[in-house]
């Protein structure tokens, strides 16, 4: 328990950030119309690929001779990039369909 209190007091800025981001997330999403639920979900899905940063840092911090770690890191990085690129591209495709119709009468 004391361990946690110590961590909490050391990282209170992080905890502030956490709480405010939760509020921000709720605020941004709560008014989205049904039409956009799917693109929104796949867009936010792409954003969860932000975990890619972790994979990059992992590889950069691995000793250059640690093949196993590097391979695992590269796999993680590739998977995260599939999530990021696939997610944004799929979202773009869906949103283009919404746009297309506006030009039509």
């Amino acid at each position, binding site marked *: 328990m004391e*361990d*946690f209190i*110590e*961590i909490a007091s050391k990282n209170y800025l992080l905890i502030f*950030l*956490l709480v405010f*981001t*939760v509020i*921000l*997330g*709720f605020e941004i*999403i709560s*008014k*989205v*119309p049904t039409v*956009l*639920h*799917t*693109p*929104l*979900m*796949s*867009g*936010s*899905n*792409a*954003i*969860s*690929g*932000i*975990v*890619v*940063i*972790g*994979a990059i*840092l992992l*590889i*950069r911090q691995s*000793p250059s001779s640690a093949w196993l*770690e*590097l391979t695992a890191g*590269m796999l*993680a*990085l*590739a*998977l*995260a*990039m*599939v*999530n990021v*690129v*696939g*997610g944004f*591209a*799929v979202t*773009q495709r869906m*949103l283009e*369909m*919404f746009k297309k*119709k506006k030009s039509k009468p």
Partner: protein
Amino acid sequence: MSPAVWFDLAYLVGSVCIVWGLKRMSSPETAGPGNTLAAIGMGLAILAAVFYPLGEDDNGNLIWIFGGLLLGSGVGYVLAKKVAMTAMPQMVSLLNGMGGATAMILGLVEYLRIGSNSGSFASNLTVVFALLVGSVSFGGSLLAYLKLEGKVDDKKITLPFHSAFNLVLLALVLFGTWALSFSTNWGTGLLFLFTAISLFYGLSFVAPIGGADMPVVISLLNSFTGISAATAGFVYGNLMMIVGGILVGASGTILTLMMCKAMNRSLMNVIVGGFGNAVPGVAADSNQQVKSVGLTDAAIQLAYSKTVLVVPGYGLAVAQAQKVCKELDELLEANGVDVRYGIHPVAGRMPGHMNVLLAEADVPYPKLLDLEEANDFLNQCDAVVVIGANDVVNPAAERDPSSSIYGMPVLKVWQAKNTIVMKRSMGKGYAGIENPLFFEKNTYMLFGDAKQTLQGLVSEVKGLG
């Protein structure tokens, strides 16, 4: 001034791009640019992560990084370009699983790195938690993908006492999380066992959920992946990972709750799989007869209506009938019929599924009415066409307190003058309950595959003109 400042600034700008992009995605007009903005933010984040000055910890390994970046981007791009719009729910689950898998691998490697020089309980906990949530999300998303792809049967993989079994598994992984954080000297074998159980928990957690509950579970898994990314952010002390991950976690949670509300059920009820063991409501009177209608009569009825509401469901997606549906819509509009679409929030297999399908077929989105608008429209509506939807138009939700869907807001199609229901057979919907709508006196059944039936209607309406 240390050069790290510039990279921190890049992270900050990237985070703002992501937040602002997500914000802009909440309106159809700005959604496209919003998505682009979020993608730019992500690009900035990746650049910053690749070139951030790490000092002595930096071992370069740029080949590995660019290899992974290229490989992943290539695969992701091809997948995204190739996937059919009807396969979008499984695509989103699959992509979501990838993010979870990343967090899982990061957790594993980072845990092994801690080695015997065990860190504090709390710092170990962040690593193990990222591993846990990542694995659950990966396992769950994978099964959701297989279910939606039709490779795994929806309902037949539940064990007896499945929810009790899941609770035991949950207790087991939580205990494992505590034990692995308490000490890092358990050996790799136990670490992998823990990962395997976490993955299995993900599978087992999604197993009893299926059909119409899929939208809920997909957005829930989405929020899990976000949380795992944010936890990994704590591991690396990276603010942008925390912001991005939490945003997704929060938005996924909100979307999940919105779906639950649309079904008038609690999240717990969905997870435990309430529909499966539900009482089938009042048994339909076997004397009741349904009236079926031929293509010609149905076509005449539609063509001479003033207003028509189309209620699409999962059947439309299965039959890939969205384009024919639009064709019928155009023909009717040419005859002076006002055609609208009534979209139930949980129609289909993911949030907003029907909207995407109809958008693909170029149906203008102002024609799509949400639940409330559609119910207003129904008061003065001449004819309703239900295409492959069942539970979302079931009057039992209003009339029969013993029904398992009682209280769920539905589209009150029986208020229209006539209702035509397109269905493959008299089978029940996902909830496995009778639909009294089919026995209403102004309901007409049109049996057959949705696409063929719609094509039939199109040629009949053409024949009328």
